[in-house]
């Protein structure tokens, strides 16, 4: 790191709950649903990502980010109960990736705790306190196990630059990634409203 980076504390770095967010508008989105089979998370993700257009670069990164959300739904939401479904609405074009992922679980109860943990993490980063950061690299809950990295949502909040929002029950999350448009002299419509 070259110098103190204050962008860590700028902008909205919180997971929000807002069922009325336009990101929950499902019109014209494609839809798939899957059983909560942990072994097939990456396969399910590929079934969705394959409809992304070639103009989207960094397709590995898009796949990884979607896979994390589906994993959360299968594992933390539906507790890997195969009968419980994960429902995914999705829409891709060259300018954006928009998804809604819903599970049948009890909802993300630790959302406020996560936001507080993340706020402290960002403070450590802004202060370049990498010793102190060691306590904030992995978010754990009572149900976390050794295979949970505890870091997926840190990256998600950065990656989904058009918003990352939960519904009131907190068992569905809507997200938007906006891709930079080159060679265009016009301002694109703000899809987040």
């Amino acid at each position, binding site marked *: 790191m070259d110098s103190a980076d204050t962008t860590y504390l700028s902008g909205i770095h919180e997971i929000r709950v807002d069922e009325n967010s336009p990101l929950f508008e499902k019109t014209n989105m494609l839809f798939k649903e899957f059983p909560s089979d942990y072994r097939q998370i990456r396969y399910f993700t590929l079934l969705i990502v394959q409809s992304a257009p070639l103009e989207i670069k960094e397709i*590995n990164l898009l796949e990884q980010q979607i*896979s994390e959300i589906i994993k959360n739904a299968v594992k933390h939401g539906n507790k890997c109960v195969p009968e419980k479904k994960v429902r995914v609405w999705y829409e891709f074009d060259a300018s954006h990736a928009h998804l809604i992922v819903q599970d049948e679980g009890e909802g993300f109860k630790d959302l406020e705790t996560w936001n507080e943990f993340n706020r402290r993490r960002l403070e450590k980063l802004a202060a370049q306190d*990498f010793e102190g950061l060691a306590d904030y*690299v992995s978010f754990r809950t009572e149900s976390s196990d*050794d295979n949970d990295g505890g870091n997926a949502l840190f*990256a998600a909040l950065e990656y989904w630059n058009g918003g990352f929002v939960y519904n009131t029950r907190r068992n569905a999350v809507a997200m938007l990634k906006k891709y930079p448009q080159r060679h265009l002299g016009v301002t694109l419509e703000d899809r987040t409203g």
Partner: protein
Amino acid sequence: MELKIRKTGTNYIIDVNGEMDLYNSYKLKELVMKMLEKKVERFIINLENVDYIDSSGIGALIYICSTIKKQGYKLVITNIHGSVKKVIELTKLMGYFPIMNSIEEAILRMEE
């Protein structure tokens, strides 16, 4: 994912080949723990042939990094690129992990 170990001087290089995902990242963690039991003290984890990492992979690297640090031993991670680098950047761990561009630079760092 395939793991290969080679030794140069007192440094042990682990070449990771393939994807560090939710299904196999634990293997790297287990390997490093076994090597620590066998008194290995200097680790270079080479990610040159890794094109995909997810939060489990990042979690494995965090676990490895903190365990080695606590024991006072040395670790360098090398050759991160593409989406692996992006994920580490998004997670803001570039300053947390001991990262060098190449194995040669990692070996020099070990001597410091």
